[in-house]
């Protein structure tokens, strides 16, 4: 048992995450216009993230499992609270102000949702019976609707996604999946009717960004200009004119991938993809090697949540998906998401390092 094992750290995953963080810091340094104050804050947050990762990794999976319903319930309470007393930023009520720190309760749900569903389905062997699926779906819908009401459609979609992945991994029958898909297709017009005007506009923009080039299409157009102008080799580090001349909005946060693409080109993108895919692959492998229902579903759900972040963000930056506020995991500047993700990786490591060594 080496030192890594003693601290319940999965070495390949930890090194990949560290490498990604370092790459992210270089990109952020450029994207923020070489803003050193911002870098200090970001570094502190990453440090906090790694501390949380190591801390969570020490918690035994059985404990996590026991805590699952309580964490989920706690998240629900906070979501209700935020709708009642939360502070409004940019027209959306997402933040809970706790005096010293402000955080988004929706972040807790990103962990709470897979934990809760994994806990629910682990009460019986897989595949889950239909009533469990119905119950799980009902439980999942509550926080999703609460978050959608804030409104924070991006996060709601991500959490819905994580719920669906757990359901899928749990072995929900293809017939049920088909039924859900049909229901979703029928519900789409209903959803459209309930969307805010700006949300509809974003979807319309995706279909034709040039329809409103200085309005909602602006983000997408400037982002695509940044990516496309990067070319194969990129413009080089610190040479993103789109970001430095302020054409690219949110260049430090949601659109940081555009800065990376502009500076490092397709070559850089290929390498960054390898890093992300390694992390995702390693996470899935952890799920694969997991020994009981709860840890399997939790690890698989968290791994796929991470993938969804990655896919939605890059899809948005490259104009494949509508503009939703999803950061590029571990690279974008931004507090709570980093800590949440690190906690998730802590859980993955806990799952992997607390296995009873029988088979291996």
């Amino acid at each position, binding site marked *: 048992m080496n030192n890594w094992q003693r601290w319940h750290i999965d070495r390949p995953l930890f090194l990949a995450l560290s490498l990604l963080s370092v790459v992210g810091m270089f990109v952020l340094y450029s994207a923020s216009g070489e803003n050193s104050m911002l870098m200090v804050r970001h570094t502190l947050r990453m440090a906090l993230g790694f501390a949380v990762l190591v801390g969570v990794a020490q918690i035994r999976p059985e404990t996590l499992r026991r805590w699952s319903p309580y964490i989920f319930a706690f998240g629900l309470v906070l979501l209700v609270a935020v709708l009642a007393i939360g502070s409004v930023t940019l027209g959306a009520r997402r933040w809970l102000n706790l005096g010293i720190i402000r955080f988004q309760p929706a972040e807790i749900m990103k962990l709470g949702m897979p934990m809760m569903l994994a806990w629910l389905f682990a009460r019986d062997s897989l595949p889950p019976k239909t009533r469990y699926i119905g119950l799980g779906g009902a439980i999942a819908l509550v926080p999703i609707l609460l978050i959608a009401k804030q409104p924070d459609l991006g996060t709601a979609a991500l959490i819905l996604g994580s719920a669906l*992945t757990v359901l899928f991994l749990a072995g929900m029958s293809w017939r049920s999946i088909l039924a859900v898909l049909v229901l979703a297709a029928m519900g789409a017009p209903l959803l459209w009717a309930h969307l805010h005007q700006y949300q509809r506009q974003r979807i319309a923009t995706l279909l034709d960004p040039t329809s409103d080039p200085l309005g909602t299409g602006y983000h997408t157009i400037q982002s695509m200009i940044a990516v*496309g102008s990067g*070319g194969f080799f990129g413009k080089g580090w610190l040479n993103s004119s789109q970001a430095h*001349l302020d054409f690219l909005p949110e260049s430090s946060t949601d659109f940081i991938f555009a800065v990376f693409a502009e500076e490092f080109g397709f070559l850089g993108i290929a390498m960054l993809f390898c890093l992300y895919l390694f992390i995702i692959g390693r996470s899935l492998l952890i799920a694969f090697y997991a020994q009981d229902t709860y840890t399997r579903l939790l690890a698989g759900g968290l791994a796929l949540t991470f993938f969804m972040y990655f896919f939605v963000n890059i899809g948005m930056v*490259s104009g494949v998906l509508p503009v939703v506020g999803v950061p590029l995991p571990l690279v974008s500047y931004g507090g709570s998401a980093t800590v949440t993700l690190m906690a998730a990786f802590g859980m993955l490591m806990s799952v992997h390092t607390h296995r009873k060594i029988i088979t291996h």
Partner: protein
Amino acid sequence: MPGTPIKDYLRESRLFNSRILVVVAIITFLVLVLIGRLAYLQTIDHKYYATLSNENSINPVPIAPVRGLIFDRNGVVLAENYPVLTLEIVPNQVKNMKALLSELGKVVTLNPRDLRNFYRQLREKPHFDSLVLRNNLTEEEADRFAVQRYKLTGAELHARLERYYPQGALAVAALGYVGRISESNTKVIDNADYRGIEYIGKLGVEASYENVLRGQSGIKKVEVNAEGRAIRTLDRIPPVAGENLYLNLDARLQSAAEQALGDRRGAVVAIDPRNGGVLAFVSTPSYDPNQFVDGISTTAYKALMDNTDRPLLNRALDGRYAPGSTIKPFLGLGALEGGLNPNKTYYCPGWYSLPGSTHRFHCWRWREGGHGVVDLHDAIVESCDVYFYNLAVHLGINRIDSILNEFGFGARTGVDVPGEFRGLVPSPAWKAAHGLPWYPGETVIMGVGQGAVLVTPLELANATAMLADKGVGFQPRIVRAIENPTTRVLTYLKPVPGHTVALSNMNDLKDIVHDMTDVVSSPRGTGYVMGHDAPYKIAGKSGTAQVKDMPASASYNAKKVAENLRDNAVFIAFAPAGNPRIAVAVIVEHGGFGGEVAGPIARKVMDAYLLPDPPALANAPGHPRQAPHHAG
């Protein structure tokens, strides 16, 4: 736990692992979609986006060239540029325009016209351009602005060159003026020629030589951020200054003529008969062109429009007047060419009647019993109307018209300023076109330049110059030379030949010129007052053109008749008669007798040109004064 744990465990593992494989397949597919999309953007569409990226960040900022200066023939500055402080706004950088304007209103004076102008630019110009809000800031205003500047984002002080006419109202008729580019201008001009340029020649030489004076805009390529703020200059193509103009116009003649005309309405055109160069081009009353440069205020414009003297009418170019007796030398020459015996006499009893008619056409000296027996010489010197009534009838209207057309009457002279009107040489065909018959009486009065015949002062001067230069005509030219502002090399414009009168016998011309010199030198001549004492020989002809039909029996007393009913005073002259260097036409509206009123004005203009300067006004010819604000 219910069931068999081991069996369940294996079944569950298989199920879960198969689902993981499906997930891996889905992830692979989605990642391939992303990779495909990114590869497409970064390789196939790369060029397109690279261009967009450059267009985003590199903004060409035009640099206005320095407009060419205008000098008179002796280097007196007539139009120059002087730096003014302007307050300008880049709309892109302004978050709340209303608030900014109200803040600025506290720092500098902004009148409604400034704001109107600004809002018009705001509608018409791109919002990354710097738009002028106020011109001519005082130093005090500039200081106040500098102090408040930190909270006035988007507003900047700039030094710009503005057109200035140091001689004020002098020579507006020829110079014209520049003004801000208007909507009607933008329809005609190529915007590429006017990058960063605010002014355009509106009238006169400023308009007709616009392309020479304007110069070429330079371009400064600056890197800008999304707010349009310049970060640094990447490249600079300097502007090319416009070329300077030297006019044929002589400020001394011009001011002599304007002073001589005083506050009377009238026009003076002086031409060098040897090349068509316009030495003086006067229309009075004049006005100060400087008030038009930045857009004239509504009240000032209304005052000019409402002025019954109509200062905005360019009388030299567009005024149309009956030539009166100044037409006589031309008709006389035409008749001689047609075979008239100059010594043949005619008896003037003071009136003329057509055969078979009792209507009497009066001679201007009818009260004294007419001129008695006169030949062509006497008829010109004493301006006998009856002789010319008879001559006109003998020539017939068609012959008269062709003589007048030969001298360019009724046609544009082709002068190098825009907007020239032409006079009118009436003909039976012209009247027929209006459905009217030609009456024999109209032919009679054509002989003394009355009736429907109209000439512009420019036409009259041009015809006089042809008379002075043996029938050779040139297109009148106000501009004499173009100067390269950098090399200071002058390029003289070649005289442009105009229509030339075909004269079969030069002696006919000599006769007429001799008659015209006697108009001035003979004590009986109608021009004796204006020129008998001149140190050079003048050939001239007076004209007194009726503007209203007076009853034949009424006595005409110029002093008693209401001013607007008085005759127009006309005079044409050239000098020195032997070798003419200047030909002049003068018209004074409602001035009275041509020889007494218009003649002396023509004399002053010729004196100013032909006599040596009084020492105080000496202006070294051909040595231009140092031009201010040259391009550097």
